[in-house]
């Protein structure tokens, strides 16, 4: 329980830092840290397959994609961007905590019995291809769209400033 609460608190901190960092590289690393912490939370809940997926795809592959993109844009001018003043941070965290606390208590009053099990898969392969094969196809399409998006947005830069 202590590990779970600790991970959840650190998860919130990582996500808040993600939005506060001015350097996109640090934001990408904060996102990776958040994904690792979420994986631990998922392990704690016994959702092992989801945890492995979160760790490998979100903390691994997505971080690589983000870091690659950031390295492509590193020489861009990032000094003009605006950001939320730091004085808003504490009130935002208080509001978030209040909503999370109130919301979870309100929900708990309606979820008196544990939700029925969704059906545990026999193995990772069974979960991956047998039960959610179409979703895996969708994930592949999202990642492909992301990669193509990066290449499309930076196509002029990659082609040395010339369109095809």
């Amino acid at each position: 329980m202590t590990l779970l609460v600790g991970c959840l608190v650190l998860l919130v901190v990582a996500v808040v830092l993600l939005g506060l960092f001015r350097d996109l590289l640090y934001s990408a690393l904060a996102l990776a840290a958040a994904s690792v912490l979420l994986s631990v939370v998922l392990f704690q809940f016994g959702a092992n397959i989801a945890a492995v997926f979160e760790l490998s795809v979100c903390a691994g592959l997505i971080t690589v994609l983000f870091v690659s993109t950031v390295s492509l844009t590193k020489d861009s001018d990032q000094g003009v961007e605006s950001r939320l003043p730091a004085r808003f941070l504490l009130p935002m965290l208080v509001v978030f905590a209040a909503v999370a606390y109130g919301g979870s208590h309100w929900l708990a009053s309606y979820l008196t019995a544990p939700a029925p099990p969704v059906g545990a898969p026999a193995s990772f392969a069974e979960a991956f291809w047998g039960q959610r094969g179409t979703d895996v196809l969708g994930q592949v399409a999202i990642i492909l769209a992301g990669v193509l998006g990066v290449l499309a947005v930076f196509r002029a830069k990659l082609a040395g400033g010339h369109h095809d």
Partner: protein
Amino acid sequence: MEGLVGTLFLTPLVGALLMPWVSKLGRRAADAFVTLAMVVTVVTCLLLLPGAASTCTFEWLGAHVEVDGLSLLFLVVVNGVGLCCAVYSIDYIGHYGGRAKFFSLLLLMVMGLNGMVLVRDLFSLYLFLEVASVAAYVLVAYNLEFDGIEASLKYLLLSVVATGMVLIGISLILATTGTLGFAGLRAALAGGAASNPVLMLAAGLFVAGFGLKAAVVPFHAWLPDAHPSAPAPISAMLSGVVIKVAGVYALVRLFFGVYAAPPHVLRALLILGLLSMVVGAVVAYFQTDFKRLLAYSSISQIGYILIGLGIGNWFGIVGALFHVLNHAIFKSLLFLNSGAVQYRTGTRDIREMGGLENRMRVTGVTSVFGTLSIAGVPPFGGFFSKLFIILGAVAAKQWVVAFLTVFFSIFTLGYFLYLQRRVFFGKLNEKWNELKEAPAAMSVAVVVLAATTLLVGVFFDSVLRGLIEPAARVLVGGN
């Protein structure tokens, strides 16, 4: 059947994967390849069409997949408009560059929309919504100009809010019922949805989330920037297809298929529809940007669809679904026309235009077809769908709704005639003396869409029986 459905998932995905290599064979190879991929998906839809009246359910790669009349209607819309946009892009996309990437992203958008329409699981629906959305964010910014990138960011940020709400709604449903499959949910919610505050909160989040995707007022802020800034074929896809599948289809499938059309949700859809119809039309009237006017008009036309659904009787639902088809055709046509005008003149400001029909006859004539259909003039398709919506309102004794629907149809005719006069008719602006008609592929696409909007109206009875009524029966039957 499984093979045909697999084709709708895999053809665009494999096409998108192979496109970078195929494009190395030359521009023509890339053009032929994207056209072939879209022709395959259209033919697949046509092969599925005879089974529109029945429902076919099966497992495909572990997912619960279902083909029924409602799926088929949206599949026809997605792939039909997708094919026209792909053909149009052959000549249009040249000046943007990155042809292979553009076609790949277009195919991925089609794949995501096909997936949304076919799956019967809330999480899979969300996942394929994201596939289409990620492709759409990039395509909106494809011109790499400031307005395109700004519009794309706005679209992205608001869409993240929308999908966040949808995801929270999905979590609440899973926590309450323990299932996300539509069939299981229907059974779990039967009779008890209205009394469970958690499920109604989830319903509210779905209305807001998918309403934002459908650009319904007051969740429409992203659309008037995103649609004008995108390349014309993407504006056509967004306005003609994406807002309908990502918004209207998802709402319909959830609230008619899963929640069994609770009266207060129908009332909410009716109010949102009326707001969208009125606000979209009034704001469109004041626009001087060709594509922005069309974008606001899309908000107004989505309003008609929601009004038909909100009325909830047979005429209303048939009218709403028929308007989904008609709006996809005539709004895609009008956006492609605006793209042809911008392609040749380099401007979207209608005050700088005038008399273009003298130089761009195909674009001018086809845009008249689109205008007459959107304004609800017989015998074009738009007339019959609006007629059914009005009949639905009258049958439900919703006199104010019926009056407003008629009034804003006339209002729509008014601002579209003004648009026609300022852009295509009147005296030719001298600076356009040397103007030429749009390139062949662009003209072919608009001619096909213009002919389709006329034929759908002339043969409306066959279209109703073959495509619209089977879809409406799914909603009335709650399947």
